């Protein structure tokens, strides 16, 4: 699935539909999840990817099947775009035994094939560098993709990792999703200087994009992945984006006018017109049935038994 030259019109249409459906899957999955929360079927917290779908979908469309991804708290969209099993994620979020991590991980702590996530900001970045190093040493040709939010640029270990990745020319792609907010904090209150310059200061090739058009993201990602894989060398993709949902559940303190303006960047609205009405309806149907199936099975699935906790005995019981 690497970058190809100008595709035929037919192939382009098929690609458009595919990308649309994948973005829609993420959108509807997250909506369903928020709905299940309000129904009390979910416990804990969640960070929806609504509005940012073009990033993961554009990127994974041009990643190789063997590439590795390390994601953060906002990982559902990344996981689904990576090709993660829908039911296993739904079940995981409900704390079911059939979840992708048996209910142990939950929303932010996922492992599926070569996809990992963790919920401590920044800490995943050196781990991803280590993965990239291992793959370079093994000459596997795999690229490691690590996701960061703009707010996560506050964490020092990110820079330790940029330095090491550049020094050792690791095959790693840093995907910085800049939605200009860290939880409730706007970027002007937590980020000084310039994002691209931060990567470049470590000698890392950086591309900044300000679009939520999945086709543009896909093209930029393809180029970046090619650079990383062929040199090999690290690269950064700084993707301007818009979160069209609360940070986690009800915590949206952003101004209504700003939010309304952000809606213009809805990647579904931007990419949707490239499909016909019938195509879009088919996508809705297919996504709805996939999600219904996944969620219904997950709802019916059993909770993990206390006995599955492992061997460590609890004292005084």
């Amino acid at each position, binding site marked *: 699935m690497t970058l190809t030259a100008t595709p035929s019109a037919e192939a382009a249409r098929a690609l458009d539909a595919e990308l649309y459906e994948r973005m829609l899957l993420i959108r509807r999955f997250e909506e369903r999840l928020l709905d299940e929360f309000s129904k009390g079927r979910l*416990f*804990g*917290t969640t960070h929806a990817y609504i509005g940012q779908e073009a990033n993961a979908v554009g990127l994974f469309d041009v990643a190789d099947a063997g590439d590795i991804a390390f994601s953060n708290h906002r990982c559902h969209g990344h996981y689904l775009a990576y090709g993660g099993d829908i039911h296993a994620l739904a079940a*995981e*979020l409900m*704390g*079911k*035994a059939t*979840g992708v991590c*048996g*209910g*142990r*991980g*939950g*929303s*932010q*702590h996922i492992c599926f094939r070569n996809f990992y996530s*963790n*919920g*401590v*900001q*920044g*800490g995943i970045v050196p781990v991803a560098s280590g993965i990239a190093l291992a793959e370079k040493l093994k000459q596997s040709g795999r690229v490691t993709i690590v996701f960061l939010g703009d*707010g*996560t*640029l*506050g*964490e*020092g270990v990110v820079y330790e990792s940029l330095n090491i990745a550049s020094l050792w020319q690791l095959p790693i792609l840093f995907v910085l999703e800049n939605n200009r907010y*860290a*939880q*409730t*904090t706007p970027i002007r*209150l*937590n*980020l000084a200087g310039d994002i691209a310059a931060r990567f470049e200061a470590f000698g890392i090739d950086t591309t900044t994009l300000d679009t939520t058009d999945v086709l543009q993201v896909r093209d930029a990602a393809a180029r970046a992945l090619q650079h990383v894989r062929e040199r090999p060398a690290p690269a950064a993709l700084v993707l301007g984006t818009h979160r069209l949902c609360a940070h986690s559940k009800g*915590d949206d*303190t952003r101004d209504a006018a700003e939010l309304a303006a952000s809606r213009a960047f809805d990647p579904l609205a931007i990419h949707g017109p490239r499909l016909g009405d019938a195509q879009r309806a088919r996508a809705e149907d297919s996504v709805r049935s996939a999600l219904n199936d996944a969620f219904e099975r997950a709802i019916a699935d059993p*909770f*993990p*038994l*206390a006995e*599955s*906790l*492992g061997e*460590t*005995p*609890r*004292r*005084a*019981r």
Partner: protein
Amino acid sequence: MTATAPAPTTVLASLNGALHSLMERSGDVYVIGEDVLDPYGGAFKVTKGLSTRFPARVLTTPISEAAIVGTATGMALRGLRPIAEIMFGDFLMLAADQLVNHAAKFRWMYNEQASVPLVVRTPVGGRRGYGPTHSQTLEKMFLGVPGLRVVAPNALANPGALLTAAVADDDDPVLFIEHKLLYAQPLLEPGRGSLSEFQSTVHGERYPTHTLRMAGARAADVTIACYGYAFEIVREAALSLLLEDELFVEIVLFTQLSPFELDPLSASLARTGKLVVVEEGGLTLGWGAEVVARMTESSAAPVRARRVAARDLPIANARTLEDATLPQVADVRAAALSLAGREVG
């Protein structure tokens, strides 16, 4: 906390009121942390309203736990009284070097030429389904760190007064541990409401220890030591032990976790000889380990002891697993009954 404000009714209101009052009373008090500004007012709302009233003294930061603690340490070194918030106690790991090798060391290592009147507040604990990196109770790793005090409020000890003491009356760094489930908890008073069966004696001033006895009961059979949210579990267990098993317990409830000052516990143990220690953190080298070790070393009479704590495992997202990992009322009951030589049902 202000003269005119209505008395707070929850732990959250008490802490928030104390912050308001501290900032009102002294221009040296600053709040620094992630997402602490209004209208959000912090992930758990403890800093709510502060930035509206004191916009220049509430500093929202980048996501930089080490630098938050380090920056606040520098402020404290120069005579301000900063209160840093770490959004989840799990992220204390990122500030461990700042706490252990900087804030806590300066006063001693600089031979008393400097002091660090810093307070680092953080919510800890599970039971909310936040999963392995947002549910931990890691303060045990900081107990015993030279130069660092660790304090934990509970629903009985006036939480706001404790926080006020840490900020205004303590010239050393204090790690202030708030269990997430305590925030919504109504404040308790001995002899009233859900504590109507208990009477309390208070030891110590700045960070007091409460000894609770069943009102008018015969000598207690077992002593239960605890802190923070564990008191909620312990008092429920104590009532059920009383009602269902006619077992009388004495509860010794601490607010200063470290340095360890256990005199009230020694006194209770001299009466009962049997000790249950309850905490939400993992069993191994939890607070209870030091408590049991000290009691074993110092008691004239032999001590019988049981610890009730979390299993030494990460905290799962799934509620069934989380429940099985964290200590429950039944665990406390079982430990007390077993020590008292009763059949455990």
